[in-house]
């Protein structure tokens, strides 16, 4: 039946007709509708979403891409659901409004029940292994709390009995999303230990930035634990360095989020990576098409002057300058024309 409909709807596909009736009516497209909005802390917004039936669910720790329409342009960002993965027909996102964050700022200001957003299927290797570890240490900072919150909730929902230590870093108590729930979970479950570290207040379990002492205080048997970490760059680096020093690198699992592109630079710097070709080289300041060709990659192209769009590829991340307009762009997962863009610093192209 579906293949007959698809044959009738060719070349556009059934969804292109159904969406004119209602955007949540889909056979292939994955979307989600906001069902509730609340603000736990001043700079975050928590959204409850109901995905279409095409959504395949997620594993605790994974992320999905959310796309919203801002001034005619579909902007995408990745967020990790914070709810238990056992509830596959439900997505809860806690989004922190970054000062320069287009999508987060939009959601923080405009999300209301009824809003329909495009989402992707869940992805990412940062997730609890199917065989749950006996001893877990979940470390997070700021809005990096969401994937580990999902892990904690999932474990509790499953009735997991192994020890789980939840170490979270925030400026102050007011900046901890899910504070009440975290405390309740720690009270209800003997195996759950909550440790809150505040960098700008003294009323937490720990004070200041992550350190070896913090680690030992939060979970004295950290050497036996599997550690899952998600947070801002500084925290990530601090934990990574310490674990490497202690020879525990293999027991640390991390999720990078919001990697900041390097600052604009007049001179050609950085490394240009062509991900699918598994090739990388120093940025020589020429266009990405020329650099791909110099690296021996047979990149599809046409006019070499920015009009025919044959060379369009996805830039995973990094900063590029359009030589025609002079505009600099830092968007992630952005389609760019290789023939008229030069890298500014580190750039990764899906080619």
């Amino acid at each position: 039946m579906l293949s007959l409909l698809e044959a009738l709807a060719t070349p556009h596909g059934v969804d292109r007709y159904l969406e004119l009736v209602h955007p949540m009516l889909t056979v292939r497209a994955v979307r989600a509708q906001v069902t509730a909005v609340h603000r736990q802390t001043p700079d975050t917004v928590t959204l409850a979403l109901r995905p279409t039936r095409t959504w395949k669910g997620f594993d605790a720790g994974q992320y999905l891409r959310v796309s919203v329409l801002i001034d005619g342009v579909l902007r995408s960002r990745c967020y990790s659901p914070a709810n238990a993965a056992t509830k596959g027909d439900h997505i809860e996102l806690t989004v922190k409004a970054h000062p320069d964050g287009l999508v987060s700022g939009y959601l923080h200001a405009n999300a209301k029940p009824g809003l329909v957003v495009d989402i992707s299927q869940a992805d990412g290797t940062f997730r609890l292994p199917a065989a749950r570890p006996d001893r877990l240490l979940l470390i997070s900072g700021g809005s990096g709390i969401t994937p580990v919150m999902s892990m904690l909730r999932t474990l509790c929902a499953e009735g997991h009995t192994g020890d789980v230590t939840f170490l979270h870093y925030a400026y102050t108590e007011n900046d901890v999303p899910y504070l009440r729930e975290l405390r309740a979970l720690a009270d209800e479950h003997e195996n759950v230990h909550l440790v809150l570290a505040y960098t700008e207040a003294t009323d937490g379990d720990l004070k200041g930035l992550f350190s070896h002492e913090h680690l030992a205080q939060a979970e004295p048997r950290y050497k036996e634990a599997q550690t899952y970490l998600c947070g801002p760059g500084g925290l990530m680096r601090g934990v990574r360095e310490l674990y490497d020093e202690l020879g525990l690198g293999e027991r640390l699992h991390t999720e990078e989020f919001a990697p900041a592109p390097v600052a604009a630079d007049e001179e050609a710097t950085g490394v240009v990576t062509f991900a699918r070709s598994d090739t990388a080289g120093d940025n020589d300041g020429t266009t990405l098409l020329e650099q791909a060709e110099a690296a021996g990659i047979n990149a599809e192209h046409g006019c070499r002057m920015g009009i025919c769009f044959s060379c369009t590829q996805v830039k995973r991340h990094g900063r590029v300058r359009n030589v025609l307009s002079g505009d600099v762009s830092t968007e992630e997962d952005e389609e760019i024309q290789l023939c008229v863009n030069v890298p500014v610093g580190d750039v990764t192209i899906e080619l």
Partner: protein
Amino acid sequence: MAHQAKLTPEQFEELGKELDALRKRVIDDLGEEDRKYIYDVVKWQRGFEVAGRGLMYAGFFPPAWLAGVAALSLSKILDNMEIGHNVMHGQYDWMRDPHLNSRMFEWDTVAPAENWKHSHNYIHHTFTNILGKDRDIGYGVLRMDPEQKWNPYYLGNPVYAFLLMVFFQWGVMLHDLEADRLLSGERKWSETKGVRGRMWHKGLKQTLKDYVLFPALSGPMFFSTLAGNVTANFVRNVWAFAIIFCGHFPTGVESFTEEETENETRGQWYYRQMLGSANITGSPLFHILSGNLSHQIEHHLFPDLPARRYPQIAPEIRAICEKYGLPYNTGGLTKQLTSVAKKIFKLALPGKKQPSTPPSGTVEVLRPAA
């Protein structure tokens, strides 16, 4: 007809900068309105399509059949021209919408998007009107420029043009095989494997939909629906052929040689695009139904700007032409079509070479005010 450069190097430079600045201004202004516009057109197109398919079920009632054909024809025209052609140019890529993206979009015609984008966006739009490079001059089957060497084959010029008009969607599809180059041995049959595979796949799906599935679903109305679908495809073919042939073939449109376009500057490239294209005047509705290809000059200058912007910038482009003393070739549909038809007939015969000055009355050559 080879032409003489009408501008000094400084003027070319200035022209390039002026047009670059205009382009940037429009790009900076793109936003919600442009998205709303194209989505409105998409909604109309899908609406016409559903209505057209539905009315075929009442095909026993002649007015319903006619209305169905009209609606389906309009759907295909909008899909191919204002939506398909323009989306596949990357005009809406800035919206980052996967459904209206040049790499993802397929149109409701047998030519596969990927094949067409290569021959159109790259070959035709980059080498516009360069003899020997732009394969859209006569599409490899017609003689549309006196500089194309005559041979007895071209006696059939009007017949070939007529057949191309009737079977236009198939002509557009087969264009990518580059049959003339296969015959001359410049291109090997084995090189067309990918192109042929896509044609086969897309052609089959389109044929199945229009000529088998929808007629079969209408049960006793099988032949009436089949006839309706054939007619709608035919109407679209004739319309698209007419609009497209008015883009580069009216009298006065200039062609260029490979030598004179070597090492072209940006300004010279713009110059070639302006002199190599012709517009059609008409109402706003006419412009939408032509996919704004009635603004062929603006389209060739800025193939990646959303087409709804072409009428907006047309007065400025015309003023720029006036300033530099360049022709701005425009006229009503009847005038431009007549001019194209005359050329198709005239070039069927060997004839002597024409001087490069355009005949009066067909082209408005605008001179700077004295």
